[in-house]
């Protein structure tokens, strides 16, 4: 493994990293999962009562 060779190039604009858009997609999916679990518990509890 080597240390970073061209730090200035990419650290200046990390937003252009193609991995970021994939990461954003992952994040949105996980966020929806969390909301879904919250909602599902409520629905279950309300139907129960």
């Amino acid at each position, binding site marked *: 493994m080597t240390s970073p060779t061209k730090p200035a190039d990419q650290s200046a604009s990390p937003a252009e990293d193609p991995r970021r858009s994939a990461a954003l997609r992952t994040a949105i999916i996980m966020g929806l999962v969390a909301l879904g*679990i919250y909602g599902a518990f409520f629905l279950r509890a309300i139907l129960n009562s």
Partner: protein
Amino acid sequence: MAEHATHDTHDEHHDDHQQSFFMRWFCSTNHKDIGTLYLLFSLVMFFIGGFMALVIRAELFVPGLQLVHPEFFNQMTTMHALVMIFGAVMPAFVGLANWMIPMMVGAPDMALPRMNNWSFWILPFAFTMLLLPLIQYAFFGVGAGGPAGGWTLYPPLSLQGGNNVAFTIFAIHMMGVSSIMGAINVIATILNMRAPGMDLLKMPVFCWTWLITAFLLIAVMPVLAGAVTMLLTDKFFLTSFFNAAGGGDPVMFQHIFWFFGHPEVYIMILPAFGIVSEIIPTFARKPLFGYQAMVYATASIAFLSFIVWAHHMFTVGMPLGGELFFMYATMLIAVPTGVKVFNWVSTMWKSSMTFETPMLFAVGFVILFTIGGFSGLMLAIVPADFQYHDTYFVVAHFHYVLVTGAIYSIMAATYYWLPKWTGVMYNEALGKWHFWLSTIFVNVLFFPQHFLGLAGMPRRIPDYNVAFADFNLISSIGAFGFGLAQLIFAWIVIQCAFLGRGAKATDHVWEGSKGLEWTLSSPPPHHSFSTPPVINDKDLAHGDVTH
């Protein structure tokens, strides 16, 4: 290589100087700065929660009430737990994840830096809200004080609180949002930001345990949020989710709460497993034994954590079949946990060990956490649990797994990576003093509590019969000793992080250290790996995993 890295540091420090204090710390999007904020927040909360614990132990020093009213005592036990769990342990692990995961997987930063900032800055507000009713009452004599129904918030008791119920619930909502965002960030970073060649099964175990922990967080924090929202509507909007008189079910709260609560226990211990799995190979100078077994054991523990929740409720009157199922499932957890302990011991077998402070804490973790594991196994046996449940035996059990488990691993991690973070070696002699004093006093503090519980002392009582006096006295002495020993820890951290005192740390810091984070300078550059590093299998901490 080192020259390059140092050069980077210089550049980035140059950038840092252009940032104002406000921009750097309040608007930070840098994983290291946010990691630092999390860790410092956690340290502050550790001392606040510890102070509450000392109020409890001071009142329990001798029989009879000397210092506080029972109601205030209950507020202390409740707040101690909430502050330690949500304020000290969880943020410390998130701070470690922030600092280490991008460096360990070869990423420049966390995947979502702005969300990272948000998830930290929610916390100080959440805890201000949580502590406000207590502060008002304790220091200004206003209101009725903080929540006093136990951190588990069981209704109907928790609903007897006044407006502090609303404060507590909104604070828990905010902590939940913060934790979920932190977890999302970890998942996105690990799944999407790894350097090419850093396959999932080549990641350090710490990353693996955190990835699994993050999934647990996303699965259960919404459940807690749901449970407390129902409490909120029961209290203020006349619903009857948990109100028996209105057709509700108080036991349903316990089921929902522990469906969150048991995975929560593993949220607080899986990253600790990861830390110890990093530290032991380093100081044993031998690859981690059974890397893949470690990963699968972690995943099994995470899976099992979802089907054991009712072992916290063996005395609520479940049907026989339910009790048997939860007993068997709980006992099963001993198998993957045992695998982990055996793997750590095998890593130490035929190795070449030295015992610097991180290793001392890691070894202390393995031994004392295992003692907590044994009492956990005893608690799983339902008929015996009928006796142990809600006694000091349980208190001893979960403090062995949380204090000498989770907290010890956080301290081990701090000593292990502090030279990397600050570029300065901590004071080794003081570190050893901290370890030995902590270890002696923590056992004086918690070991006698096993005896108290077996002798019949219930937990959460402010006063007790003279039969329990002797071990309570010993336990309280241990508590003050342990509390004072932590001041050494704070001083060591202050010396390294704020005063910059100590020998200059090398990039590798430890003789046996392996992994990407040690290829960076100490302290590391502003963006960890702006260009993805080349991964060389034999340089990884767990050795070549292909065979």
